[in-house]
């Protein structure tokens, strides 16, 4: 037998390597479809499993993204604005033609664990499978039971509006290789069971980081800036780590109160996208919310002695503030609006949070403050929750700007906001 030369052995090695790479790439890109199955009957699922799925779905906030404003529940069609274009949520009711009625449990499992649809298509990470991958098999089972027993709705979601090349789903293979750590949550044995439950929920199902962590230019959460703050629909999602801007530091007790009841006297009420999250959480088990609060309080970290002293001094100052403004020098325009429109509710020991204790006026952007004043805070029809009237009719844009500038300088120690007029115009134009 003739021995092969070094050159031809090298060529063979390179060719084999190339073949392996191509095979692996093809396998990654072209995922096998799961066959359609008969839509399971409700009786196929244990009632307790469906209930468990309902509670998990409340924490996962499925309904908020998968329901269009004024649309049928879970029938999709809600637009998510991204830097790459608009993505529309899909119909996840058990309708066979337009929803997931033909999906087997395995197909559902793969979607949650790896972000691949039934037909093998790559799903955009606007669907936060990079978080849902942390779910246990049992919880995915419960979510399947819940989702497949909802009311089927025939509604095809609008086509995504993504710029080239982001409309090429196969490119997500690269994104997933870089940014998806698939697999269920692994408990930290050095921490309590409650902490681990909280971590499992926060990092997985509740996907808090999707809004509260900044993203890089590929739209992935920055792993070196976990919970460093982000945006949702142009609202500011404040930092939930050591950079938390809260004037009085969050602890587990206050976080649990806020998430469970939708109001905390030292921090205020959630508004914008967070209001929907907290409304859904009112259906979750209180022990789970407490666990999430315990974990998040640990992420935020206990305050330094200096920060605690500053916060205590602030609370004392707020609680001893005179109930009427000093009128001798006259009131500025912003002060007039504050005392005439806001003080009735927002002065200490009244209904609303005192401005000095609300993060809203300490954020880098005036967006949240402006948006809350314009929209007000309204619970969904028939549900309990904090109420704040909208001031868009009573106050002109210029008057809202005066108010917000006054509040920033009187109730925070941060520098003046630079772009208030631009921001209010953006909000009023619906630029979101």
């Amino acid at each position: 037998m003739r021995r092969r030369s070094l050159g031809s052995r090298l060529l063979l090695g390179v060719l084999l390597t190339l073949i392996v790479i191509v095979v692996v790439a093809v396998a990654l890109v072209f995922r096998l479809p799961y066959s359609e199955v008969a839509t399971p009957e409700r009786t196929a699922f244990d009632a307790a499993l469906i209930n468990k799925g309902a509670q998990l779905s409340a924490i996962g906030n499925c309904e908020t993204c998968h329901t269009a404003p004024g649309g049928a529940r879970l029938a999709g069609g809600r637009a998510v604005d991204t830097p790459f274009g608009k993505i529309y949520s899909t119909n996840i009711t058990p309708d066979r033609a337009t929803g997931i009625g033909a999906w087997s449990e395995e197909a559902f499992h793969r979607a949650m664990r790896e972000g691949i649809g039934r037909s093998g298509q790559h799903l955009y990470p606007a669907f936060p499978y990079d978080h849902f991958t942390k779910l246990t098999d049992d919880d995915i089972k419960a979510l399947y039971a819940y989702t497949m027993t909802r009311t089927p709705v025939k509604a095809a979601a609008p086509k995504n509006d993504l710029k080239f090349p982001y409309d090429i789903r196969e490119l997500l293979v690269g994104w997933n290789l870089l940014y998806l750590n698939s697999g269920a949550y692994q408990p930290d044995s050095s921490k309590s069971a409650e902490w681990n439950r909280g971590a499992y929920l926060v990092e997985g199902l509740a996907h808090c980081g999707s809004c509260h962590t900044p993203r890089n230019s590929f739209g992935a959460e920055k792993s070196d800036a976990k919970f460093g703050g982000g945006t949702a629909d142009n609202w500011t999602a404040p930092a939930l780590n050591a950079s938390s801007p809260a004037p009085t530091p969050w602890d587990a007790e206050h976080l649990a109160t806020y998430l469970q009841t939708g109001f905390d006297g030292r921090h205020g009420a959630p508004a914008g996208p967070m209001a929907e999250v907290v409304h859904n959480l009112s259906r979750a088990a209180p022990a789970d919310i407490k666990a999430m609060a315990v974990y998040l309080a640990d992420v935020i970290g206990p305050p330094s002695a200096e920060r605690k002293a500053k916060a205590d001094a602030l609370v004392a100052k707020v609680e001893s503030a005179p109930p009427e403004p000093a009128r001798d020098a006259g009131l500025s325009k912003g002060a007039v609006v504050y005392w005439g429109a806001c003080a009735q509710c927002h002065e200490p020991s009244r209904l609303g949070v005192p401005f000095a204790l609300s993060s809203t006026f300490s954020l880098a952007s005036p967006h949240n403050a402006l948006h809350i004043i314009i929209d007000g805070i309204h619970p969904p029809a028939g549900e309990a929750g904090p109420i704040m009237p909208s001031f868009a009719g009573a106050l002109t844009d210029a008057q809202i700007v005066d108010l917000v500038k006054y509040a920033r300088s009187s109730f925070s120690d941060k520098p003046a906001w630079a772009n208030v007029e631009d921001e209010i115009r953006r909000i009023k134009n619906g630029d979101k």
Partner: protein
Amino acid sequence: MIKLSVNGKAQEIDVDPDTPLLYVLRDDLQLNAAKFGCGLGQCGACTVIVDGEAVFSCLTPVSVLEGREIKTVEGLGSETDPGPLQRAFMEEQAAQCGYCTAGMMMRAQALLQKTTSPSDADIIAFMEPNLCRCGTQHRVLNAVRKAASLMKTAQASPAKQPAAQGAAQ
């Protein structure tokens, strides 16, 4: 001095600039239709219209209203010459104790100035901020519906009708 325009009439008031409009209407201008229900923008009894928008007069400092048009129930018509909204509320008997009624009427007026044919769902959603403890909500809904059609057919005042009836005979 603060200059206001209320129901088309110029007024000059000498009050602190952060005084809520409700107090000026009742104490200084004797326009007592708007009522104090909560002082917190949570009940709607104080609702008036400013530049076409329904606002809570208990939470609106008068100084922000200079140069803007304020309308109260007194501007919708009078006892002898009620406007279509007032006629509708009277015909549907949409009042029990009457405390919420002025606020209800102003919010309804704001709706009908924006939408001439609101659906029942539109009316119910728009009127949501106004509370009624006596339970007249259904009659208020009927009254707003009737007011919409009255405004469209321009049967604005019963005072006009006797003349028309006389002419028809």
